[in-house]
């Protein structure tokens, strides 16, 4: 076989594999969405699940997933930004920084089930938060934090050196330089990264089985006092998220339409993740345009 034919064959193989991957995703998404789409309606998205009767919805679960995401971000963003800034701006090269970087790497690759068990042992039982949104948010923080640190670090590293030095030359303090010069410039990258990471949080189930619990108390959507036990906003109530609900319906569902509910909920979950992806892209572009004044 001459070099030219080899080249052609190899190229064809690679293109075929790439096409296969695209088809695989299209097939996966198509399968999930089309199986579930027939079941999705406004009623399905807003009503509460039924135990044995058909026609239950996923309203509370959808709300729980979103609320849990917000709680997680409230905890993660300040911590992640701070740690990321430290890693990229304050850390001196050396053994200590090296080991901190190792910690971040290890933390980001912890199996989610181990984090869930840790949450059960420490957050739920030892600290006494019980099965609650707050416990779930803390467990998710463990995954999300290293991602956030990496995103911040990379975003700050992308800031042109001249801009940083100009700011310092003008006599601003280092912290001021970071917060008012470098952060705005790196904002698009940070926002995009955060939204993408959120998608992953949205789909997490293994860790939440042991921390946020597998059932939802009756929710009173007219009660917005976060301290009332029936309020949807109370962070110390147990909450079943959408991903956990799929798991539960699939494994223990008694309702006659359990399979359809699982399919519908999976489709909703995937659509939400798709939305996160598109928002991240769009938002990143908008912010980029805004901060760099390009048309």
């Amino acid at each position, binding site marked *: 076989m001459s070099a030219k034919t*080899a080249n052609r064959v190899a190229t064809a193989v690679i293109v075929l594999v*790439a096409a296969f991957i695209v088809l695989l995703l299209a097939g996966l998404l198509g399968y999930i969405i089309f199986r579930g789409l027939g079941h999705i309606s406004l009623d399905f998205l807003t009503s509460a699940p039924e135990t044995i009767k058909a026609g239950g919805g996923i309203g509370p679960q959808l709300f729980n997933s979103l609320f849990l995401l917000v709680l997680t971000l409230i905890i993660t963003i300040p911590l992640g930004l701070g740690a990321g800034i430290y890693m990229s701006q304050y850390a001196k*090269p050396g053994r200590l920084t090296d080991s901190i970087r190792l*910690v971040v790497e290890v933390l980001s690759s912890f199996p989610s089930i181990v984090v869930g*068990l840790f949450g059960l042992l420490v957050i739920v039982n030892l600290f006494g938060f019980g099965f609650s949104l707050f416990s779930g948010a803390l467990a998710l923080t463990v995954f999300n934090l290293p991602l956030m640190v990496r995103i911040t670090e990379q975003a700050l590293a992308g800031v042109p050196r001249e801009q940083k030095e100009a700011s310092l030359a003008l006599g601003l303090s280092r*912290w001021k330089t970071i917060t008012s010069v470098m952060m705005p410039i790196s904002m698009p990258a940070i926002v995009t990264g955060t939204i993408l990471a959120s998608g992953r949080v949205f789909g997490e189930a*293994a860790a939440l089985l042991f921390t946020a619990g597998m059932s939802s108390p009756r929710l009173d959507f007219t009660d917005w006092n976060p301290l009332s036990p029936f309020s949807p906003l109370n962070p110390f109530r147990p909450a079943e998220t959408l991903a956990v609900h799929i798991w539960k319906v699939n494994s223990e569902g008694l309702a006659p339409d359990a399979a359809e509910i699982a399919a519908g909920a999976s489709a909703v979950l995937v659509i939400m993740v798709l939305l996160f992806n598109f928002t991240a892209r769009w938002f990143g572009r908008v912010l980029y345009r805004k901060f760099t004044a390009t048309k």
Partner: protein
Amino acid sequence: MDQWAVKQDGNKPNLIRKPSKQHIREEWVGRVYTALCILFLIVTIIAIVYFVASRGLSTFIKNGVSIGDLLTGLKWAPEGEPALFGALPFIFGSFSTSLLAALIAAPLGCCAAIFMTQIMPGAGRRYMQPVIELLAGIPSVVYGFVGLSVIVPMLRNIFPGQGIGLAAGALVLSVMILPTITTIATDALAALPSGLKEGSFALGATRWQTIYRIVLPTTLPALLTGVVLGMSRAFGEALAVQMVIGNAPHIPRSLFESTSTLTSVITLSMGNTITGSAHNNALWSLALILLAMTFIFVFIVRFLERRNKR
């Protein structure tokens, strides 16, 4: 970045004029705040390791199981008489599924990366990149659900056996780790100095020759990094695997026979056992093995990265 930090220490504008009080306060706020965040990270990891280890080690201390028996024993009968804690089938299951998954996903991921960087950079970036990111975004429960309703029946129809088993687990995992491998491979290929490639083209090599002889060998450590990271993700995945692997505590005789992984046995039994019982402690020991494996994977990645820099 780091050089800046070194230079900053004491010999830049600070020498010209005494920094104002506000300056000093601001610096303090920055330093203390970011250091606290880092501290939180470190405390978290120490807490995780400490608590998992304290539970996991009590199998050996309190229940008198020897470490050797746990790691090499073939029989897992924690509720039996006498109770036996041989976790080798799970360790074998975890390694074989993640290795197989990596074997399937690595060539696919590398091809995708080559497509995106060497063959059609424009279209690749525009269409492939989002596809890969979407694959990464699909929740693992959904993967398990699809695996159970599509892959298992498919395997059952094509091959002898129940469909459920090692092969089904590896297939589901390979799709799950494909994005990890592809993303890292793409980054590595894109970072290759273009002079290297152009030199090869200028010598009259075809594109495939260039890829095969120049591009792949130079980026090999980085590609391996991606594969190891993918394996580490596969190793820790729980729900999707548990749904399709069958969960028999035995080393399978074929690819299509039910077996278990470390994660699947933990998800299956953790809720059913009493905290502090021998069975429960043994499950924590399995979690400890998972934890130790995470460290090992990270160290392998570090080693490869160091090779890569050299």
